[in-house]
């Protein structure tokens, strides 16, 4: 399924997305190298989820094109898994049922699927909750179920939309570490949306910054040259981390202020 190593997994080519009466993103060109970890940050409402939806093939760009492994994307992106910003679990399925949904839909061997579901339940710390329904879980637990549901089908590209916003610091660190370990072992391409610049830098190879909407542009793409594997606790005090943070925040700050002024006005 993968193209040549070192190729481009996701490519946005001059992508513009207009909704009736509103332009969300304007002329965005952005690439995620195969096997890389790309984060997207920007003020609320700037079009981060819109970009992920286009990478997933759930919405089409109004102008420009999206390429996946060098091929123009038409319809659903079959090589991507998508962890949505909103709650997307099926309320009538238990935790186990929700995690097993992907394998079941793809006609996987039931025994094997069952086994890897157990593995994922352990990994996401949901032991003892396998037979609960989503409405019986906390918001953070539902996020963890959604994460297992997305990763269990082993997609080449993983799209994640603010997956850890609802988690406490401890669980969040644990899940971030888990994601990095999974990703490093697999060389999957991850496109990760977050509000949190520190999280973006700590996890990523590259951080893309979007300007405030409407018609938000790409402000810049910043390389994060920190070596891996990374220690997520200590990395935030690393002088190079602080330096990268300063330079990105300098640009992002203006955009956040702009969007703040727009709200005030």
């Amino acid at each position, binding site marked *: 399924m993968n193209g040549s190593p070192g190729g481009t997994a996701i490519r946005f080519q001059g992508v513009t997305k207009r909704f009736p009466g509103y332009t969300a993103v304007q002329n965005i060109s952005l690439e995620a190298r195969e096997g890389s970890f790309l984060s997207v940050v920007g003020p609320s409402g700037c079009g981060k989820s819109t970009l992920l939806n286009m990478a*997933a093939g*759930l919405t089409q760009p109004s102008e420009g094109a999206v390429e996946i492994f060098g091929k123009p994307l038409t319809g659903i992106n079959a090589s991507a898994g*998508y962890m949505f910003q909103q*709650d*997307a679990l*099926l309320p*009538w399925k238990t935790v186990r049922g929700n995690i097993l949904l*992907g394998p079941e*839909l793809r006609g996987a061997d039931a025994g094997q699927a069952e086994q890897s579901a157990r593995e994922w339940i352990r990994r996401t710390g949901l032991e003892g909750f396998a037979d609960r329904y989503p409405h019986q879980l906390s918001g953070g637990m539902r996020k963890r179920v959604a994460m297992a549901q997305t990763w269990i089908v082993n997609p080449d590209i993983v799209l994640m939309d603010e997956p850890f916003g609802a988690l406490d610091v401890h669980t969040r660190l644990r899940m971030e570490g888990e994601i990095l370990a999974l990703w490093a072992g697999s060389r999957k391409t991850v496109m990760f949306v977050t509000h949190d610049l520190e999280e973006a830098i700590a996890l990523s190879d590259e951080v893309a910054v979007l300007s405030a909407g409407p018609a938000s542009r790409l402000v810049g793409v910043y390389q994060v040259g920190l070596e891996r594997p990374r220690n997520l606790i200590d990395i935030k005090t690393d002088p190079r981390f602080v330096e990268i943070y300063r330079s990105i925040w300098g640009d992002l700050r203006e955009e956040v202020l702009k969007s703040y002024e727009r709200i005030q006005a």
Partner: protein
Amino acid sequence: MSASRRNQVPMAVWQVLLGAVLLLGWEAGAKTGVLQPFFFSRPSDVLARVWKMVAGGGIWEHLAATVAEASLSFLIGVSGGVVFGFLLARNRFLGDLFDPYIRIVNALPRVVLAPIFLLWFGLGIWSKVALGVTVVFFIVFFNTFQGVREVDPVMVNNARMLGASERQLIRHVLIPSALTWIFSSLHISIGFAIIAVVVGEYLGSSRGIGYLISQAEGVFDTTGVFAGMAILAGVVLAVGALVDRLERYLLRWKARDSDAARGGVS
């Protein structure tokens, strides 16, 4: 504070109490002559009549006819309503195409169809079934249609990203999601199915509860009319309890608020 008091006495007790007060008031009214027994009968007479019909066995043939007609109209109406509801909700073109016609047909009062169905299907059970179907179908159709259209698009997108085909989408997402709507329509449509077939029997047949009621009315036998209605009420309650059971099982994943508020059937 009032909630804790209500918790001590189950709602079912209050419900039975209300029924008892109404019946006793009726009985007392008939006894004291406030209510003319000729026009209003009396609960004790009605009860005695029901018992006579049940014990004497005369009721079974009629009850069986009504239940059979109602069940058939229910089954046909629900299947048709669910299938068409799905089809028209999923296919924009068909949905828009049929929209005005469904509204027009649904606006017709069904009672006026009864004589036509008698003409088409004869005095037997099928004219009643047809009448019942026209009622049940539309209730279930509209609810299914709404239920499918209102499905959370994020859930649908999530399932599609996980690899769902259109058929799997229906099975894993749309049907379960529409089930809440379909069930709320089942409660109503069972009642209406029975009403429709009874109206059908009332207008022309030789069997069924509706037939019994029309016979009783023909000789100004108020007690007989009320006895027929009481038996109907019993049937509706029993079937409703069954649907409730089924609903509780199939919708067991739902968070429910106080079960006591629902009257504690089962």
